[in-house]
């Protein structure tokens, strides 16, 4: 039981990271970014490409890739539609996702590639009578570090302050001299870094990369944001945790005949939540009235 709980926590943390990345962009731009999954995928491929190098450097390279791709996508594709309505932006992000996914498909081909990961990742450590996979420690540790780092960034730096202000009321922030372009670029950069962390963790978990690996994570992120309530960081984390926990626990406790339907069940949960609370668990109102 305790083992299952830790598994649930680990998966929940992973999903929370995804949801955070999605929410960050949403809070500043009111856009749910379909391409986030491809940021994850491309970072993972970076890890694959850099596999020969010392692990730390490869990871750094993956993070750099995530940030670069995200910022580039914003500059090329999302900036021109910044003032379009929500649906238009969503569809644009879908286009970007399709392009990125298929460019990789075209260049690297569809077959998943294996990635060599450091041996300690595959091992487990004994803690309090339980055998916990090291990867789960890593996931939990990284998530905690990310949350602390993000909290520091948002609440203790000028850039973070500008971002929080912009998230609440973009126009008003601009009237006070906050540079729109920089805030949005920063949001995307952080989002890309978060995506990279997720990508690295996924690679270590599955040992492989494939062009379509970003599809389910981005859905997870979206659904977590919806059930947590739009635009709230805390809601995203909560939504991610719930989704991850549900997925993990279902995987452990579902009868064999239904196990393969785990995803189907998990992704039907948001519907149930939305029936009773259409505004999500923490009910994010989608933004205050603008100036």
């Amino acid at each position: 039981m305790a083992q299952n709980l830790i598994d649930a926590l680990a998966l929940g943390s992973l999903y929370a990271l995804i949801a955070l990345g999605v929410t960050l962009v949403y809070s500043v731009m009111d856009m749910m970014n379909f391409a986030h999954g491809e940021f994850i995928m491309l970072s993972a491929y970076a890890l694959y490409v850099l596999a020969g190098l010392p692990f730390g450097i490869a990871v750094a390279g993956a993070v750099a890739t995530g940030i670069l791709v995200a910022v580039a996508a914003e500059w090329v594709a999302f900036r021109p539609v910044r003032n379009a309505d929500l649906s238009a932006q969503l569809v644009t992000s879908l286009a970007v996702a399709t392009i990125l996914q298929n460019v990789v498909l075209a260049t690297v081909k569809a077959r998943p590639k294996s990635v060599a990961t450091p041996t300690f990742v595959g091992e487990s450590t004994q803690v309090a009578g339980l055998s916990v996979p090291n990867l789960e420690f890593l996931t939990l540790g990284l998530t905690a570090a990310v949350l602390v780092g993000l909290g520091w960034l948002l609440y203790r730096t000028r850039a973070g302050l500008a971002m929080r202000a912009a998230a609440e009321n973009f126009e008003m922030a601009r009237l006070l001299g906050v540079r729109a372009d920089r805030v949005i670029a920063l949001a995307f950069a952080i989002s890309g870094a978060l995506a990279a962390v997720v990508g690295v963790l996924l690679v270590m978990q599955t040992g492989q990369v494939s062009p379509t690996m970003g599809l389910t994570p981005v859905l997870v992120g979206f659904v977590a944001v919806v059930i947590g309530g739009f635009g709230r960081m805390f809601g995203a984390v909560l939504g991610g945790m719930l989704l991850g926990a549900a997925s993990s626990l279902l995987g452990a406790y579902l009868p064999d005949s239904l196990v393969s339907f785990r995803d189907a069940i998990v992704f039907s949960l948001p519907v149930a939540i939305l029936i009773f609370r259409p505004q999500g668990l923490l009910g994010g109102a989608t933004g205050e009235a603008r100036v």
Partner: protein
Amino acid sequence: MTGVRLRSRASLSVSLLAPLVLVALTALVGADGTPSLQGTVTTILCNLVIVLGLQVFIGNSGVYSFGQLGFAAAGAYLAALLTLPAAFTALQTPSLPDPIAGADLGPLPSTLIVVVACGALAAIVGLPLMRTSTLAIPISTFAFLIVVYNVLANWDAVTGGASGLVSIPRTTTIGSAACFAALASLVALAFKWSSSGYRLQATREDEVAARSLGTGVTRERLIAFTLSGALCGVGGALAVHQSGVLNPTTFYFAASVTTLTMLVVGGARSVFGAVVGTIAVSTVNELLRSLEGGASVFGVLTIGDTPGLAAIGVGLILLATMIAMPDGLTAGREAGELPWIRRLRAMRTPPVPAPAGAVGVERSHAPAVSQTLSAEGIAVSFGGLHVLRGVDLTLRRGEALGLIGPNGAGKTTLVNVLSGYLEPDAGSIALDGIDVSGRSPARLARMGLSRTFQAALPFRQLSGLESVAVGAMGVGVARRRAVEIAAEVLERLGMREQASLAAGSLTPAGQRLLGVARALATGPRYLLLDEPAAGLSEAEGDELVAILRAVLEDFRCGLLLIEHEMSVVMSLCPRVQVIDNGVTLRIGSPDEVQGDPAVVEAYLGSSYTVAIGA
């Protein structure tokens, strides 16, 4: 009034025929071609049915659903299983229940079953999803798509699992696909121009305004979602009967993006656009797909093996469209509405003929307990701000009450409370003696309470006549009668020319007056007008007063007027209520109010009153 038309016969004919002509032409292109060309053409036509399914929901509601291909998948699988001979089903899907496994139906009966089954599925799935917000629907429908995929890929014994099904009878021909495509076009057009379709379009244009006219947003979306599911199911069935094989990825993410691109490129709001977009994008898609295995372009450029080339092309097309041409090739217009066609005289909307008899929606004249709209003790605060602090208001049928007060005094908030857009922290509202506190705007509209908005909130893409007709349709009037009522109302308001113009192209004054017409079309017992005279010149203000006086006489409704334009209020309203700082300052005749020092002070400040020695 009879003989009123929303569009000329010529324009209607062109709009109906154009998709059919395109379908026929496409079919002809493939008719005598190579087998591969025939295959391509058939694929285009099958895609078209699915895209038309998308158009029905996305185009009319303005909400993106990413789950429609889940219905196509469901339809495809169901059709496949129904038409697979029993021997094959036993082999591929051993656990399939007997009625389906044993069924060895022809393409037509199976397709009919698919229509009903997919429609039902869409209704069930849509019931919870359509109640969520406009942004939650894309995501929850995306989740639905993945759930469908997951079930299909894992329920091996019933669906053949990830490897899918083979040896499905290949019964779709160019002819049958063309017939279905043509039929789907007509269905899509019929829906778009039906009462339900118009109400849904109104929610797309402006959800808030649509609610004020009695339209239930969730209900209309659900209807379109159901129809869309059925159409997509048929498309799936057609496609599977062309290819003969099926697996869960056939109608999944890539296909969702491709069909969505077809719709967006053509112009989501238009059925003609769906057809044009499908043909254009399908052609490019098939072309690029043929190059994926490696090819030599014009004998000069050699492309290696590039899977995903078609998808990249489609993605680029979609991106370019969203950036440069978000309304699509047709800009959302049907064939009969295209600018170069409208230049022909026969295509223009015929002028609205003069009304003959009585005006307005017939309302049951059941004797009411009391013929008033009354509010008692209304209190509203936002955060720490007390906007309304216990306001009473009584509006009688057939009377005009002016509501005035300085900016920020709480007048619009009061109207929002009365019309159901805002729940007060305290107080109650009664309409003709019935307690209506907490009822939704749409419900109130159907009970006889309508309003206009300071910002007009026009249905930009609908014509004046259509906009006003939506008002009547919102309270349940059939389409033909609604159009007649709309014409009558527009005539009474002197807006005959604006009937055929798009609401988005009118001046703010025109849009506001159109808003009044819209609200009148609901046959209100009580009409709340929020600053109808803002920005009007003196002459226009006089005209408005005359119009509103006529409205009072014709409709015998209660009229509540928020206005800053004092000349309008004073000439029209025998009774005026002054609100300041969230409380009622004074109720009286215009003269009494104008001469009241407290009122003057509220507007112009105490130093003013001192200066004029009041």
